[in-house]
């Protein structure tokens, strides 16, 4: 019961939903609507696991005084503060403090985290982006040509733009299309393995 029923569920719903795509009849559409509605609700509950996990990790670090445990206090306090200010008593999603924290704490930090990557890509360009072989030279030249499109190069601007467009719509298109086809085949194979019960890692150990 612990392993067989989940396998039956996966198979039944997998096959039904795959067939549903080809049978757009009224009852099949209704069933499909129901499934989409319910599965979203189930999924929302699953997300609570992520929040619980965050609390659990923080609590564990503080309890055991792990390295840098003080920062876990910052995480937990800020999390509960955000939840508190988001309660309907404070105006929910439209509460003033909730919005202020989002705009002046969350946005600046998250935006800056990603902006740090600008420095690392500059460093990588200097230290690692080398023409070590013919293959890496092709990569380097392609990147340089794409980058040159941003710079006003006077009379050279037009040919550089043309090369850039050609690169995107000919070799880049071919390369990315091959990857897409490969990913697609892999995705379908994985989904089939799950539906047919060949892939069972989600069941865990028992």
């Amino acid at each position: 019961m612990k392993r067989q029923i989940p396998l039956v569920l996966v198979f039944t719903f997998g096959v039904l939903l795959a067939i549903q795509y080809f049978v757009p009849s009224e009852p099949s559409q209704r069933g499909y609507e129901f499934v989409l509605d319910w599965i979203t609700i189930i999924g929302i509950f699953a997300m609570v696991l992520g929040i619980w996990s965050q609390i659990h990790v923080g609590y564990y670090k503080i309890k055991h005084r792990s390295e840098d445990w003080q920062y876990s206090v910052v995480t937990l306090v800020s999390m509960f503060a955000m939840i508190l200010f988001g309660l309907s008593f404070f105006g929910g999603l439209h509460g003033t403090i909730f919005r202020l924290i989002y705009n002046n704490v969350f946005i600046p930090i998250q935006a800056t985290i990603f902006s740090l990557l600008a420095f690392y890509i500059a460093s990588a360009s200097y230290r690692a982006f080398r023409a070590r072989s013919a293959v890496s030279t092709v990569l380097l030249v392609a990147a340089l040509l794409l980058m040159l499109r941003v710079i006003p190069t006077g009379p050279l601007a037009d040919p550089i733009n043309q090369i850039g467009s050609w690169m995107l719509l000919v070799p880049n298109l071919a390369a990315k299309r091959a990857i897409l086809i490969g990913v697609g085949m892999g995705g379908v194979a994985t989904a089939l393995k799950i539906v047919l019960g060949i892939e069972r890692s989600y069941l865990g150990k028992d």
Partner: protein
Amino acid sequence: MTLHDRLLALDRRWVFAVLTLFVITPLFIKFSVPVTPVKEVREIYDFIEGLKPGDYILLSLDYDPGSLAELHPVAYAMLEQCFAKRLKVITLTLSQTGAQMVEEAVKDVADSCKLYHGFTPERGIDYVYLGYKPYPGLIILGMGMNFRIPFPQDYYGTTLDSIPMMRGIKNYDNVKAVINLSAGNVSDYWVADGNARYGVKLALAMTGVMAADYYPYYQSRQIFGIIGGMKGAAEYEKLCKNPGTAAEAMKIQVFAHVVIIIFIIIGNLAYFLGRRKTAPTQESR
């Protein structure tokens, strides 16, 4: 220690410092960068321009603060274009941390319309903000059947049937197109679950990191346009005759790109000099 050894051993913080200098300097220099819109950007602009007042369009603004820099300019320019054309705009976000930011952007543009276009688009009449839902694939599939499945209410808790502009609007069949502004794999879901499943007319605006990967969909006409990164954003702003942060950012981009190209050249020169000096077949480090 020779010059190339020194160059190869350069502390990365010097690289950081030079980049910072090159990014700050253009803020004090007055110049403009020529921006020429490419076909894939122009197609989106032309499509929206070709719509009639009262037509519905869905803008799925699926990005978070981490990619706000690249996609906010497109969102602002496109929303203003849609409002100015008196289109009915359905907005939503499938990004878990972008909901408030997107809400404010939509409201900002609607409020600014009074100043630039002489009228204020009203929430519920001219536009609606459906808010956020998790699991983009399921939500896109759900909206294909009925917007009310994933979004029984809008962001403010109003049921969809009580919103005047949503009465009689069931699914993608009622919207002329979906424009997805995305900073992640939500675009994949829109192409697969929106276009492949329901035949949604779709265009994408995305971060630069993603742009090159979506050209196969453009060529196969699964999407009818691509706005890629800050350059695409600046091109869209130019088409809308609405220069904003992207236009200014392109000035800085020029300086930053120059310095990164110089880094690549110096790095390679040092590498080749070092390789010649040691052994021809061995790498210096």
